[in-house]
């Protein structure tokens, strides 16, 4: 696929392809999936990590916790990454939920929103080893990074919190995003 067609498809997929969406809000665009009919026939089946969407803005959404996994090894979204979200209680972490990132590298739902969005110390345990093995990346055994804890604090539930994680088999970075 050439770069121009990818870009055009991405724009169409994100809802920028027609004037019909002129009155739509950014929020609605962020939720819109790529319409299947807009894409030309694609000989290669989509696999985890294939880049098909443009960035989306979450500005203006209600307070919530969202995440985005970005695979800096392949240069793609981190699709299919299994993540265990836990909250600290005393000296241990209690599992809240396990999510798997969608082809955009984001889970389809916020990690926490509404009454589930509480202040506290959290851990997102990311299954790096399984992710790269599923993509047939040759790694040592045991791999340098296996189950990676990403620890962060939510203090003000009146604010939206976004947690991007940039990763490769040999390192990672995370930060409070937007």
């Amino acid at each position: 696929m050439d770069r121009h067609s990818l870009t055009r498809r991405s724009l169409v997929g994100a809802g920028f392809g027609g004037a019909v969406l002129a009155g739509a809000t950014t929020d609605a665009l962020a939720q819109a999936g790529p319409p299947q009919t807009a894409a030309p026939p694609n000989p290669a089946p989509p696999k985890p990590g294939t880049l098909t969407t443009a960035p989306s803005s979450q500005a203006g959404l209600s307070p919530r916790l969202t995440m985005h996994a970005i695979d800096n090894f392949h240069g793609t979204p981190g699709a299919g990454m299994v993540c265990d979200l836990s909250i600290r209680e005393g000296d241990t972490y209690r599992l809240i939920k396990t999510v798997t990132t969608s082809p955009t590298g984001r889970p389809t739902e916020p990690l926490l929103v509404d009454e589930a969005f509480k202040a506290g110390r959290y851990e997102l345990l990311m299954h790096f080893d399984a992710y790269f093995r599923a993509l047939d990346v040759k790694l040592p055994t045991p791999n340098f990074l296996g189950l990676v804890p990403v620890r962060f604090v939510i203090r003000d539930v009146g604010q939206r919190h976004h947690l991007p994680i940039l990763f490769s088999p040999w390192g990672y970075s995370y930060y409070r995003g937007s």
Partner: protein
Amino acid sequence: MAGISTHVLDTDRGRPAAGVKIELSVREGETWRMVKTMITNADGRTDGPVVAAADARVGEYQLEFHTDAYFRSLPDAGAGEPFVDNAVVRFAIFDVKQHYHVPLLCTPGSCTTYRGS
């Protein structure tokens, strides 16, 4: 030289992070056993190796960096509270003949780690 070393850099201020407490643990079955505690020196490094070559074993290790206390202790600490909780880096030694340098680049709102050299 094999073994484990680290280096903590305060990328918010662009200088080594001195006085950061680091706890080393090793995985034993389903639990992590704390082995020792270190404090970074003025260069952001530990005075001795985190794990010396002779002590390196194939297995999983954990470094907990007490970045929260570090950022709060700074005289120029900003009004904002750190987003990153104490950074915990878990990694494996898969070949004891190799060296594992595991730096931490940190700010109150972000952290980065990688296999360095």
